[in-house]
């Protein structure tokens, strides 16, 4: 059972980590857009 839970948990950790990187990239891009608008 431990291996089963480990596999399912690992799958969602990988997906959530990737979604986290997307959110971080989007925030950085939003900051850049704001800076461009100020110029």
């Amino acid at each position, binding site marked *: *059972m431990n*291996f*089963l839970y*480990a*596999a*399912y948990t*690992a*799958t969602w950790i*990988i*997906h959530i980590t*990737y*979604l986290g990187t*997307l959110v971080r*990239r*989007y925030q950085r*891009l939003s900051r*850049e*857009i704001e800076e*461009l608008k100020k*110029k």
Partner: protein
Amino acid sequence: MKMKRVFPILALLTAVLLSFALYEALVAAPTEQTMGNVQRIFYYHVPSAWTAFLLFFINFVCSIQYLVRPNPVADKLTNWTVLAIGIAACIAAFVIRPLPEGIEPSSVATTGLAITGLYFLIKKCFSQPRTDALAVVTAEVGVVFCTIVLVTGPLWARPVWGIWWTWDVRLTSTLVLWLIYISYLMLRRFSTSGQTPVLAAALAVFGALDVPLVYFSIWIFRTQHPQPVIGGGGSIDPRMLHVLLINWLAFLCFAALVCWSRYRLEILQREVEETQALEALLEPRSSP
């Protein structure tokens, strides 16, 4: 604006579908007699692999289009070749007898038509620069799914085989596939050359050749990896197949949503980079 309203609804539906698929995998699916509960890893491992293969295939199609579309002759030639693949698959499905063991005529015809349909759908919906953006997106999301395959595989193998890893053809070719697309993403990330999209597209075309090797390795070679559950002489309990397909559908919906978000991010990023480059050009130079 319309997309902004549709996205949360689709995200909610996907979340419901993923939850239902998880319940089906952990509770509703019958327990396999010899392996026990650890067999349920299969409901995440196999759909992740199929989703990764599909994404790498879209990356392959986009890369080909990025390379051939600027050249009208090559573009026309590719169009005719893709059409010929679709027609040949349909003819082969109903003419060639006997087909190799485990291959159904309908699956040959469907695969051929799906390849042709997908090629022309991408061509109709995406301009040449946008195919490059879609290629990056599908490679990145494909790598995420392929990583899951490489992580969940050993977690299944340890209790069943007694080892985490073995260098058999299926496992090794999957690792090579993952490494090819990691190098593709590193090329995209770190190369500053103007030729990067062309080089990456060429790498992707060759990299995609590994996908059929991974998929058919268990049909062609004698491997430690289990035999195919669909086709290839394999069999599966209909209830297990039902759960497997529900999980694949859930992962496909999830992958489509992630690709959609990542694609919008990629387009926005390119627009910002273009604006920044234009600004840098227009900025007055300081006199020496």
